[in-house]
């Protein structure tokens, strides 16, 4: 399989084919096994966080530094020239002279795509408002593949805020590359939007809909949880009445199979009780840590250092 990702920008999940995704996963596994060493030595990566995000930023920084690269940039728009009224295009054109690749997060949707219009350097979108955050999806898939090797035929539960969660929408599209069956678990008010079920119908991906994970937990290979925000409900009483169905605690664990892995994009609030962390099915910290080799491999491929 020959896959060329050199000089590509990764702005959206639709920028990557299944072949490319699988290629990235393979290389990320090798990176994690230590095959490439300090392959980013002599490279400078810009990390432009117009919108703050500590976790994503730290993960990228760790990825670059652990592979021997240098990283420059800013952690919030307040410390960038945007505050002085500079256009995004100008910021990107300027920064392009200082580095080999740009990682950026911005609260404006489409900002990363705009950035890729004005520079020849590869751009990695680390989040643009409610739109896309593709590397989160890559590390999610990587984590699943690490546990199951092949996703075909697996049953995957997606739980929580299925209406607004960017993470869920993006993961759903990536999972649709594989022969999985999806289980949507959410309160009615936060159900998966029709445009996604229409999409799944079009490509013949099977799915089921539940209001409580306890009804389908035993069938699942993975249960991917997201936070349900109180603010999404008009009526706080309604929130209180449904929230319990989406919280995993020790008791909730008994409704899952012995091998149902529990994932979460973090940060969590109370949707997974701390007591669950000790369970061998809880893999969300492992999942977060996988962000490092996955981002390393992606940077290596886009720079053409990893072939």
């Amino acid at each position, binding site marked *: 399989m020959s896959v060329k990702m050199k000089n590509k920008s990764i702005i*959206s999940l*639709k920028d990557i084919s299944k072949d490319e995704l699988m290629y990235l996963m393979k290389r990320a596994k090798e990176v994690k096994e230590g095959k490439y060493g300090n392959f980013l030595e002599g490279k400078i990566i810009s990390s432009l966080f117009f919108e703050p995000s500590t976790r994503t930023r730290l993960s990228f920084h760790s990825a670059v530094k652990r592979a021997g690269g240098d990283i420059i940039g800013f952690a919030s728009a307040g410390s960038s020239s945007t505050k002085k009224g500079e*256009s*995004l*295009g100008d910021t990107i054109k300027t920064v392009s002279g200082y580095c080999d690749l740009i990682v950026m997060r911005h*609260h*404006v*949707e*489409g*900002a990363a*795509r*705009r950035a890729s219009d004005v520079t020849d350097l590869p751009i990695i979108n680390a989040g*643009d*408002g*409610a*739109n*896309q955050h593709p590397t989160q999806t890559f590390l999610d898939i990587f984590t699943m593949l690490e546990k199951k090797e092949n996703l075909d035929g697996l049953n995957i539960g997606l739980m929580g805020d299925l209406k607004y969660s960017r993470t869920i929408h993006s993961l759903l599209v990536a999972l649709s590359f594989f022969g999985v069956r999806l289980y949507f678990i959410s309160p009615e008010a936060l159900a998966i939007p029709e*445009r996604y079920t229409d999409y799944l119908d079009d490509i013949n991906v099977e799915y089921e809909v539940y209001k409580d994970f306890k009804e389908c937990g035993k069938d699942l290979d993975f249960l991917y949880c997201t936070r349900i925000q109180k603010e999404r409900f008009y009526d706080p009483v309604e929130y209180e009445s449904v929230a319990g169905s989406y919280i995993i605690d020790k008791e909730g664990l008994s409704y899952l199979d012995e091998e149902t892995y529990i994932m979460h994009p973090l940060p969590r609030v109370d949707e997974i009780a701390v007591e669950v962390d000790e369970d061998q099915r809880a893999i969300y910290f492992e999942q977060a840590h996988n962000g490092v080799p996955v981002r390393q491999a992606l940077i290596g491929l886009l720079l053409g250092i990893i072939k």
Partner: protein
Amino acid sequence: MGKKKERPYKVFKIEKGTVIDHIPAPKGLLVLEVLGKKNDGIVSIGLNFDSQKVGKKDLIKFENKIIDKEETDKIALIAPEATINIIENGEVVEKRSIDVPQEITGFLNCLNPNCVVNRENLQPHFEVVEEGPVKLRCKYCERVWEVKYDMVENKRK
């Protein structure tokens, strides 16, 4: 119930120009908005005619104006069902075929206020992701829109 009888109607007959017929009502005004009302002849518009083809239809005649490819594309996005006839010397000289274009830049604006197009005053750019009714995906924020009156740029100026 028998077939609805089509009432005969007369809108200004033109010697030269463009007749856009079978625009599903009420899209006529939107088509007019998109093409612009400026013309060096009469522009006549008829709304809500009975039509066996599309139920209720609108119709626009531009005297002296022969619409170009770009304008044809604009009509294709809004009313792919429409028919376009080019008239010279009172006769139809061309039945313009309508093809929905794959991409469109310019005249339609993204309705997402948090889209970079609106934040940075960029040229909007859409890909057509579905035909009939046409759905457009903003190249930037990736939201998918059905073409609406609010998206037409002329209106905002």
